[in-house]
């Protein structure tokens, strides 16, 4: 298959492992003693308030920050090694993208191939095929020559998902993938996530939207400066655990879209 994950990081039992991970920024603790093991071929929800350490955890997985203690393994490898294998892809929130940048959808998805290209980043036939195929999977092929800013929010999200597919990443980190997307995109993305699971990829979704976690995620990780609990969604997603995670938020949050922002300090 064209967009199968890179060989070197296939068939590892655990996509993401953290062992007593501690991260601090100039003395301020962002994460302490966070330990977890997420098996390959699973869809995991990462749930916590703003400031609970979700983005810190993502940054640590991408190798942007050095843990002050503890270790991280991606597909059983050190982060820097996994990075070289193009194993980790980050799909940003729409707000994190400069939509007025003069760049086409095709070029954005091609950026997923940069890490596997030579120094001058000249696309080979295989790169073009990978981009074509990735665009096909997210149903954006007909829009490939449009500037990225011409797409709707949902289409843009799919373009960045296509970039991760073109990269052949085995670990996908998604930041609020369901916020501000249309129904078609939401349906397509959930189908893709199920296919990714089938292909053995590890999908970690950082979100406030508890309904989506309950509906899609096999596993859930609850964090608040540390991993409070993780495991099968059916076992972990209890109102007691959620109360713990959101620090006193009423459990009926399960029945509506949660906005945790209002509950910080």
């Amino acid at each position, binding site marked *: 298959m064209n967009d199968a994950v890179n060989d070197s990081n296939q068939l590892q039992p655990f996509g993401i492992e953290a062992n007593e991970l501690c991260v601090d920024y100039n003395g301020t603790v962002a994460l302490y003693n966070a330990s977890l093991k997420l098996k390959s071929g699973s869809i995991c929800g990462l749930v916590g308030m703003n400031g609970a350490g979700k983005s810190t955890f993502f940054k640590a997985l991408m190798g942007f920050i050095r843990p002050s203690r503890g270790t991280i393994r991606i597909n059983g490898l050190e982060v820097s090694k996994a990075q070289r294998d193009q194993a*980790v892809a*980050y799909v*940003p929130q729409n707000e994190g993208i400069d939509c007025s*940048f003069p760049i086409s959808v095709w070029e954005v998805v091609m950026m997923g191939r*940069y890490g596997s290209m030579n120094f001058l980043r000249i696309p080979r036939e295989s790169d073009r095929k990978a981009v074509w195929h990735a665009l096909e999977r997210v149903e954006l092929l007909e829009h490939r020559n449009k500037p990225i800013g011409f797409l709707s929010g949902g289409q843009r999200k799919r373009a960045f998902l296509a970039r991760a597919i073109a990269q052949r990443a085995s670990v996908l980190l998604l930041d609020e993938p369901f916020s501000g997307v249309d129904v078609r995109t939401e349906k397509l993305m959930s189908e893709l996530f199920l296919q990714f699971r089938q292909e053995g990829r590890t999908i970690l979704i950082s979100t406030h939207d508890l309904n989506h976690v309950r509906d899609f995620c096999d596993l859930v990780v609850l964090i608040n400066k540390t991993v409070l609990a993780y495991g099968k969604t059916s076992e972990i997603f209890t109102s007691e655990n959620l109360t713990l995670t959101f620090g006193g938020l009423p459990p009926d949050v399960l029945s509506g879209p949660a906005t945790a922002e209002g509950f910080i300090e």
Partner: protein
Amino acid sequence: MIDTFSSISPLTFLFEPITHEFMRRALMVSALVGGVCGLLSCYMTLKGWALMGDAVSHAVMPGVVVAYALGLPFSIGAFVFGVGSVALIGFVKQKSRIKEDTVIGLVFTGFFALGLVLVSKIKSNIDLMHILFGSPLGISQEDVEHTLIISAVVVAILLLFRRDLMLYCFDATHARSIGINTGVLHYLLLSVLSLSAVAGLQTVGIILVVAMLITPGATAYLLTDRFDRMTYLAITSSAISSVVGVYISYWTDIETGGSIVLVQTLIFLVAFLFAPRYGILKPQRNHHI
């Protein structure tokens, strides 16, 4: 001025100036520097580095003076002080509670003042007015060679790293996550900026060089949604502005740097008003109710 224009034929207007050696040099250097700065300006505008461009172009001033005093090429002094100023900005920002734009303003004015003081204290042949306002009509053969080398280095770097730099401007997070060293790209872009500031210094001077580093990019940005096309447009508009500016300066005896930058600003204004998609006077389609 009107009289001057009406009394000469277009052919004279075009060909009389290039009978002079100094004008041929001025036109060539200005067009070259314009093109190089135009290319770089695309990255500056897309990265949101206009203020950084302003800072670095001012901060190279003491470097130029020190290099002169030590008998080194200007570009080395400019490079050291340009990159040094940004490192200092980063350091002060990280170690204090002051916001970044304040730190930038603080550091570059400090460097600039140091440059002014050094010029007045170090007895040299440096003409302050030439550094501040440029003097393309009085450029020496040595300066021409110098500018050629700087331009070649800048263009080579920008061409070799164009894809990576584009990615760095668009999505630095992705760049890092696939193992591209964004720190290197950051300093590469800064180095190129410092070098271009020295090149631009000779044509439009330190005070206006920032215009060459942002205006062509901003103009091109209004005209296209393609990165490659944006670079061509910026290079072309910038080089043309330089040539037209030098011509106007020759015939009307106005200050050359100002003339070049004014032409650039005019081209920007035209794009701002009439750009097909992003101009404010674009034809209003779908306006019927």
